[in-house]
């Protein structure tokens, strides 16, 4: 990836090929003939009950645990037999509570890998400050502190900074946010999403928290005992169509509500409102409301910012329309998720909310019914994309092209969601998964969205514009031998 124009190296594709891990002389392998491809530049979440082999699988990627059988291919290179220590220096590793070395300062911890790689002191110091800045810690304050002088969240941040120190293409995270309180966890997750939007690493993250998997993952692999892949798909698809009861149980209740996190207000149909201006007489506005057979009117100021939201009864009582802003208006922005919108509506107990765009300009109204419809549509139209291969049948996908340059194409495009275009061969079939999944110029193939019936497509900003159903993708063109998904 040295020829990369971006100064940091972006993700590399990983292929776990037919890997088995047996401990001792045990009959039951901890990981049983697992084949799994991890697309370049994306976040893949491993979820599953404890003891299912997800952590073992993760640790086999950097060979902290050596596979008993099988091959490991990173960025097209077979790394099954190369020096494990050297391999690990090229793979970021984050564990619960950061795993900082307590006897070293923050700067020394972050500088460990660059030092092992033989960087000179000034370059290391520069990199340390850069990384502290990236993880939102003030370098001057924290550089010389020891881990015990940091809070749990700060330690975790330093752990992430250390993993990124030598700019590895791959980041492995083992329950990274398990040891911090829920509020800190949420902030760290948000920060990770931001960092990923900037760096486009290939991130493999183990978690037991399905909500975390949904929030962070581009793809989720649900594991059962023996690292058996029960389902490997997008969060949307898993929530909409869980493969079986096991996955359903794992998702827990409220799958519909969880889906609301994928959709944003701007993607659903807003209703226009009846608009009044403060200069008008209440009676005039009331007439408009009655004519439109609506119950409320939105009062806007000159710059189209909502001032008040008045019912017919209120309009009847008033002699003059309000000129100042009502601070309790149920406002949501076009960028809010439907989940946030629902929240605002329920809090305001209005059953609907006012949508505002840039500079608080009025855009329309959104109601609970709109959200309910969106849930239904989400279920019906959950993305049908070709999932990367994940199976335990020992089917080895043909590896071609291996996505090594895909990341470069994507780096500038600001989208790492090449895979998320509308291909949908069934997961687990023989499609040339590893190569095809990542090796397509992202922006080129991404159609302008909204032509499809998936109103939420491309709503997660970090995923770029995932395009419509049936868009012939660049990936398909590059791999003519691949079974055609859909015309």
């Amino acid at each position, binding site marked *: 990836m040295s020829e990369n124009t971006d100064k940091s190296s972006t993700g590399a594709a990983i292929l776990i090929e037919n890997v088995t891990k047996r401990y001792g002389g045990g009959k039951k392998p901890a990981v049983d003939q697992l084949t799994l491809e991890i697309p370049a530049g994306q976040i893949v979440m491993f979820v599953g009950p404890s003891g299912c082999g997800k952590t073992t699988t993760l640790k086999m990627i*950097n060979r*902290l645990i050596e596979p008993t059988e099988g091959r490991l291919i990173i960025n097209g290179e077979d790394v099954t037999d190369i020096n494990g*220590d*050297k*391999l*690990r*220096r*090229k793979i*970021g*590793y984050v*564990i*619960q*509570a*950061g*795993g*900082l*070395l*307590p*006897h*070293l*300062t923050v700067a020394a911890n972050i500088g*460990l*890998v660059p030092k*092992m790689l033989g960087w000179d002191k000034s370059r290391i110091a520069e990199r340390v400050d850069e990384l502290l800045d990236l993880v939102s810690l003030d370098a001057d304050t924290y550089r010389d502190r*020891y*881990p*015990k002088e940091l809070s749990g969240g700060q330690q975790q941040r330093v752990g992430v900074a*250390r*993993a990124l120190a030598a700019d590895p293409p791959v980041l*492995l995270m083992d329950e990274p946010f398990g040891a911090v309180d829920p509020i800190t966890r949420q902030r760290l997750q948000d920060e990770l999403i931001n960092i990923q939007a900037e760096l486009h690493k290939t991130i493999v993250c183990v978690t037991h928290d399905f909500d975390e998997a949904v929030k962070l993952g581009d793809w989720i692999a649900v594991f059962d005992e023996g690292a058996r892949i029960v389902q490997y798909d997008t969060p949307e698809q898993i929530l909409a169509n869980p493969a079986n009861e096991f996955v359903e149980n794992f998702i827990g209740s409220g799958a519909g509500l969880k889906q609301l996190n994928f959709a944003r207000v701007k993607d659903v149909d807003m209703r226009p409102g009846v608009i009044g201006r403060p200069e008008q007489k209440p009676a005039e506005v009331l007439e408009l409301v009655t004519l439109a057979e609506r119950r409320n009117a939105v009062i806007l100021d000159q710059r189209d910012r909502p001032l008040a939201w008045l019912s017919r009864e209120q309009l009847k009582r008033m002699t003059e329309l309000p000129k100042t802003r009502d601070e309790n208006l149920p406002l949501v922005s076009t960028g809010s998720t439907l989940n946030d919108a629902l929240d605002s509506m329920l809090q305001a107990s209005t059953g609907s909310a006012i949508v505002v765009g840039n500079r608080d300009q009025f855009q329309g109204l959104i109601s609970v019914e709109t959200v309910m419809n969106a849930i239904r549509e989400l279920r019906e139209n959950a993305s049908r994309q070709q999932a990367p291969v994940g199976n335990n049948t020992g089917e080895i996908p043909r590896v071609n092209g291996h996505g090594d340059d895909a990341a470069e194409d994507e780096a500038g495009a600001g989208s790492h969601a090449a895979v998320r275009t509308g291909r949908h061969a069934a997961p687990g079939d023989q499609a040339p998964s590893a190569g095809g999944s990542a090796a397509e110029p992202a922006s080129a193939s991404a159609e302008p969205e909204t032509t499809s019936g998936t109103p939420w497509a491309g709503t997660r900003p970090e995923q770029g514009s995932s395009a419509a159903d049936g868009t012939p993708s660049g990936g398909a063109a590059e791999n003519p031998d691949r079974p055609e998904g859909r015309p």
Partner: protein
Amino acid sequence: MSSFFAERWEQILSASWQHFSLVVQCLILATVIAILLAALCYRSRGLTSLANNVSAIGLTIPSFALIGLLIIPFGFGVVPAVIVVVFFAVLPILRNAVVGLAGVDASTIEAARGIGMSRAKTFFRVELPLAWPVILAGMRVSAQMTMGIAAVAAYVLGPGLGSYIFSGLSRLGGANSLESVAVGVIAVVILAQILDAALLIIGRLTTSRGIRV
């Protein structure tokens, strides 16, 4: 007493220095040996308990008997004295080193390995520094104990303050006998305190601020 000291203070100081130097050198040697042994043992439960047992039983061996037996292969002089002092000095350090190394958080080691530190580098850069305060505590116990044990070196005509104690005891009742014993004992106690203080300071200087309690 004061006249005894006044007349012989040069010899006493020189014997004290020999005693101190014997103990310090043996302590350094013992620390190296103990850490090597601990490094071999601490990862295996069986070897760990073996090390602990050896250390416990070893301490019950009378030093006097051991040094007497060592005369047979090694004769008189410094060699048997050093062997005895090192032997006893190793035991508490070994025990602490095993405990200290085994007590390093497994997740810390995993993190070190996970970012690409080799096995050896992990041991010297992570495990040993983290176990160091515990090892140092063992060294302090050893230092106190071997100050006393080093006195028996005089039995094999080795260096140190033991000669004052032995010669005093052998002619108990004679002129200056009590003074001789007292000088030996008091000097040993003082040296022990000095060494302990020195180790304490070394501990402060060599323990990372990040793991100081």
